[in-house]
């Protein structure tokens, strides 16, 4: 057993696992039976009649390390297994689209019915049709931008005040209520100011497909930007 004088018996396999820590890194902890190693180590010492406390301490320390490694692996095993991704579903080839002429049911009457609705909408928003389809050339005199912006801001403030009054507990205001009794031109100006308010996020506008009125809600924490004024 102790063929080598230099090396004590516990440096022989399999006990050497407990004393050469670098070996430990190369072995799977599951392959090590701690109780077997320790029992063999104790038996060997008993047989030899010599008790080496330093070696016993090292064996104890190594056993604890191996035990810790096993525990860690166990914990890892307890983690829920990763769901194995199911194989992608069968994706069939595209269908062949046969070409067929088909008489459609849309007639000029349908076109006119919806045209009536669209023109009503055009009137409601006060969007005068631009008679010239080409972009208008800039006028000789443009009002100073600052002045114009100041004016708009004043208008926005007063419209916002009015909207707050009109809301009074309710959640939304109808645009028709805002422009009730106003001249056409004033109504158009109010609508444009309303769009500016919507653009700064102070109000939100929307409209139902089947209604000609615009609903306005006031947003307290105004958000600037965002596409909130969507007119259908």
């Amino acid at each position, binding site marked *: 057993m102790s063929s080598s004088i230099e090396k004590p018996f516990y440096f022989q396999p399999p006990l050497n696992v407990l004393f050469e820590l670098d070996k430990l890194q190369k072995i799977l902890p599951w392959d090590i039976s701690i109780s077997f190693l320790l029992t063999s180590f104790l038996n060997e010492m008993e047989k030899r009649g010599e008790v080496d406390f330093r070696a016993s301490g090292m064996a104890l320390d190594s056993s604890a390390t191996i035990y810790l490694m096993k525990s860690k692996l166990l914990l890892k095993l307890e983690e829920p297994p990763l769901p194995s991704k199911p194989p992608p*579903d*069968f*994706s069939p*080839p*595209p*269908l062949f689209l046969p*070409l067929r002429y088909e*008489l459609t049911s849309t007639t000029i009457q349908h076109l006119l019915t919806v045209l009536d609705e669209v023109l009503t909408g055009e009137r409601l928003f006060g969007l005068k049709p631009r008679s010239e389809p080409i972009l208008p050339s800039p006028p000789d005199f443009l009002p100073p931008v600052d002045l114009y912006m100041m004016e708009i801001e004043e208008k926005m403030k007063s419209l916002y005040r009015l909207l707050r009054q009109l809301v009074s507990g309710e959640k939304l205001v109808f645009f028709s209520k805002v422009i009730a009794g106003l001249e056409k031109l004033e109504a158009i100006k109010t609508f444009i100011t309303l769009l500016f308010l919507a653009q700064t996020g102070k109000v939100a506008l929307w409209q139902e497909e089947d209604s000609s009125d615009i609903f306005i809600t006031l947003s307290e924490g105004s958000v600037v930007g965002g596409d909130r004024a969507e007119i259908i």
Partner: protein
Amino acid sequence: MLEEIERKSSELLSEEKLKRDSALLEAALYVAGRPLDLKSLGSIIKTRSKRKVQRLVSILMEEYKNRETALEILELDDERFVLQLKAEYSPQVQRLAIRPLLSKGPLKTLSYIAYRQPVLQPQVVDVRGHHAYGHLRQLESMGLISRERVGRTRLLRTTGFFADYFGLSHDLRTMKRQLKRVFEDFEKTEPEKK
């Protein structure tokens, strides 16, 4: 002598009627642009006799075959008939069709819905990718699929119009069987495309 004339004139009359009925059926198939069953065809020529309709359409089909034209009348599985362009002419003229035709992507999404229906929207997007949202809108606007709200998502199915358009059965199980056959045929003809 008089009898002979009467017989002849009634024969002529019935031949005239036959020709007109046959033309009416052709008109119906042309206008509909989808498969029509014997009942619908019968209602056009004001008869309830399926046999009569069947006979007339068969004559019409034969006539189209003999003419060797770009068009064909096909009989589908369930006694339905459709007038359409022969597939071989499709590539050269499809750009002239009024409706924007579906490209390969939306057609594949449609195939998947047809095959798996009723199917939840997220499953379709999972398999077909995020482009599928656009496909679904397009397919819905063309009346080929319906999207029913179920909780926070949507349940997708193909429509009756879809079945008609592609000449498939309205019965879901039969349709799926038919589709399976179509897909298998496709794989046979385009094995490299798998």
